[in-house]
């Protein structure tokens, strides 16, 4: 199981590198979406690994709220480019 978690960690590094080196804002937003989803899936994986329902519920809430934050931020940035 630790091997799976290590693979998840390595996959998480890819969008972090992308967010670091790309200056274009929508590429950064894509990387943010990727990281937000990946981290919440990792939280869900931890909850299954430890059989902890409290962390599991928090992981589900973070998975949904992360998308809401992304939509709000994307809307503000899109309005900025229109004006």
């Amino acid at each position, binding site marked *: 199981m*630790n091997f799976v*978690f*290590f693979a998840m*960690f390595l996959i*998480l590094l890819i969008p*972090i590198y992308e*967010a*670091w080196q790309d*200056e274009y*804002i929508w590429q*950064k*937003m894509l*990387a*943010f979406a990727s*990281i*937000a989803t990946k*981290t*919440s899936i*990792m*939280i869900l994986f*931890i*909850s299954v690994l430890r059989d*902890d329902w*409290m*962390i599991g*519920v*928090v*992981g589900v*809430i*973070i998975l949904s*709220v*992360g998308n*809401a*934050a*992304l939509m*709000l*931020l994307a809307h*503000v*940035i899109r*309005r*900025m480019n229109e*004006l």
Partner: protein
Amino acid sequence: MSDEFYVVAIAALLPLTALMLVLQVNPYNALVIRGILGAVAALVYALFGAADVALTEALVGTMLSITLYAVAVRSSMSMRLGVIAAEPHPDNERHDIPYPPEPLLSALRHMLDQHHMRLERVAYPSLPALRTALRNKDIHAICIGTETNESALLQVDHTEPYHIQTRLQRLYELMQKDIPSTMASLSYVQPNTLESAAIASADSQPSPVEGKL
């Protein structure tokens, strides 16, 4: 032992993303990186068993704070340029703002882009309304065409097709550096004494290409 390694590797992401956030220059990019930092922080907190802290970080630290900061940055980092509203053209249904013309507009946008700001045009019906708005600090600068008879009120000379008057010293310095003097004349006016406008204009005559603007 190997279990320890994963915890350390995940926890090391937190200072890594924090460093990315601190080194970011553009405020909008920094907001996105702040969201990434919040997601990584929530993961680290959940890994250490603090589910309540992870939930608070995701809800307040990521969602609420970046939304509020995005609105704050968007409304503060802009230059409000007042222009006189166009008469609706008979064969053109679009009620767009006639000036500043596209070359001047793109020069202004290019200047503001270097400082991560954006240009916002605000249309007013007449020149007195423009000056009142400038005096009331509703707008940062006004742009008028010097061919119009309203420009006589501002005592600008007619060598340049357009005239930009600002009440901010910093904006005036930036425009002096980056706006070509053949495109528009600039003037800085003290915020409290709007009448004593110091007009700085170049001596060069506009070439026919610029005269058409």
